[in-house]
């Protein structure tokens, strides 16, 4: 009926009694980059985390509404959260490779899925690292600790790690906010490459980054979705005054 990968209907989220997301509805298309922007505390990261049920880890969270991924409501009682998260990967703000070798980091996902054959793992590791554009940098030190790499490299290792479980959607929570401009540029380039095969949703504080990388942009403010549209339109001719004010730096 439609080709939207993710459909959100009237999603509200509460931390205790505090309403953090108010009746959000949006549709996210497949194999595009969708950026969420907005000031700190506006709920964009919280919203991102509802898309692979990462908020389940936090106590005291109540969620109302529906999120459909491939037309399946992921807040249905019968949903297998573990398999959902295999399909919807996540990259965090602070790179978080395990204190293991680069190889073991990438192979972690396949291994927990029961792949133990060395040749298959080798292939997955190489493919994932190549996809994450870090193969050339680490191919000689696959068995060194991932923590010995630079911050930017660690973040790309994390991206490679999530690619290794073959997700369809990749959620990125400010993936470049702790990185220098060169590493940031590499991550952005990578996002551009990855969108050919994956649906990418990215939260960012950096509006230029949203403008550069995304196809669609959504502005959040105090738990409300203010406006969502094609990125060129948001940045050149937004429908709402609030959006215009925010992107021109007048508030937020």
């Amino acid at each position: 009926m439609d080709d939207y990968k993710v459909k959100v209907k009237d999603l509200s989220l509460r931390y205790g009694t505090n309403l953090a997301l108010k009746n959000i509805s949006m549709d996210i298309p497949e194999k595009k980059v969708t950026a969420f922007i907005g000031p700190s505390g506006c709920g964009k990261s919280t919203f991102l985390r509802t898309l692979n049920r990462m908020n389940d880890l936090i106590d005291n969270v109540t969620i109302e509404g529906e999120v459909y991924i491939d037309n399946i409501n992921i807040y249905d009682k019968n949903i297998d959260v573990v398999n959902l998260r295999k399909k919807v990967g996540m990259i965090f703000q602070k790179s978080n490779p395990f204190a293991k070798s680069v190889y073991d980091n990438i192979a972690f996902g396949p291994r927990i899925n029961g792949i133990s054959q060395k040749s298959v793992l080798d292939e997955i590791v190489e493919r994932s690292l190549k996809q994450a554009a870090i193969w050339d940098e680490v191919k000689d030190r696959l068995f060194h600790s991932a923590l010995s790499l630079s911050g930017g490299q660690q973040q790309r290792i994390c991206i490679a790690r999530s690619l290794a479980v073959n997700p369809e959607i990749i959620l990125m929570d400010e993936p470049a906010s702790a990185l220098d401009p060169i590493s940031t540029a590499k991550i952005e380039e990578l996002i551009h490459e990855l969108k050919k095969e994956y649906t990418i949703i990215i939260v960012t504080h950096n509006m230029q980054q949203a403008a550069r990388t995304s196809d669609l942009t959504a502005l959040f403010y105090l738990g409300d979705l203010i406006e969502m549209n094609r990125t060129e339109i948001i940045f050149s001719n937004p429908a709402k005054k609030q959006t215009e004010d925010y992107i021109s730096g007048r508030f937020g």
Partner: protein
Amino acid sequence: MYKVPGRIKNKNKETLQQMASFNKKKFRFSDWLAEKVIKAVAFLSIAVVILIFIFVFREAFPIFKMDSKSAAPTETLVQESYGGAETENSKVKTVDNKIASSNKKQTSSDKPSTSLFSNTWMPVSDNPRYGLWPLFLGTLKVTLIALLFAAPISILAAIYTAMFAKPRIREIIKPVIELLAGFPSVVIGFFALMVMATVLQNIFGYASRLNAFVGGIAMGLAAIPIIYTLTEDALTAIPKTFIEASLGLGASRRQTAFYVILPAAVPGIFAAVVLGLGRIFGETMIALMATGNAAMISMNPFDSVRTLSATIGAEMAEVVFGDTHYNVLFLIGSLLFIFTFALNAVAEFYFKNVVIRKYQSKK
């Protein structure tokens, strides 16, 4: 309109300048005093440890010097006395002198130090033998049983509370297990002696009611809170980002616990087990009450055993002051001291060096 505050009045300015002048060192008495007092207390505690160390070793030392098993002649016997280290010191000296003099007129060629490696512990027979092997073996057996019992239980309990339990349940379980650490060991020993021994005998049907198995289980109970608490700390110290990363990759909670958190916490868990081991090793009261106290060489876990610490506990009160037996007990004390010291040192240094280098050095 905003008014720029005027200059500070001259008089105030002078006092301020005086207060803040840094061209001359100022003596601050209370700071000096506090520093010295703290320093003194710190050194005092170190000194106490070292002095105890020296005392125990000094009392053990004559065993290697003596050539005779008959140490102090009857007329030089000193009334046995316990505690009161200050008065003992002087007495010990005189006893040592008398031993030295008695050594000259020894007749037997049996060195007591050679009997240390024999297979019998019979310190009060006419022909006393001080073989430490049965005691070592007994300690080893009990420790092993206790550790095999306590370590898996406490580690699994820690994994459960750190990883799976709901906060409410966690808040009940954690303090309850930690409360067990405050149990006087004599109470655990009493429980083992009166209740556990009978129950376990009925279940397993072994011959001697009090044995290494019962003692080991009881000592395991004493070690569980230590191993549990430290393991739990090690597990919860693993950064939350690891957990998120693992769950985000589609790992289940079990997979996250066993493949991500547990490996990362291994050094901490190792330290916890070693400290628990130290506790078991030095545990006296439970050993005394629940192990049967028979010094024999046997590999059967259901035979009675006598541990090193229980030997001191049981015999120190009845030993002749300055006798070979007395020295041997101190030798056992020094061995216990060295072992526990080594265990704690390993736990401490291994933990500090490996854990911190591996997991905390990078950011």
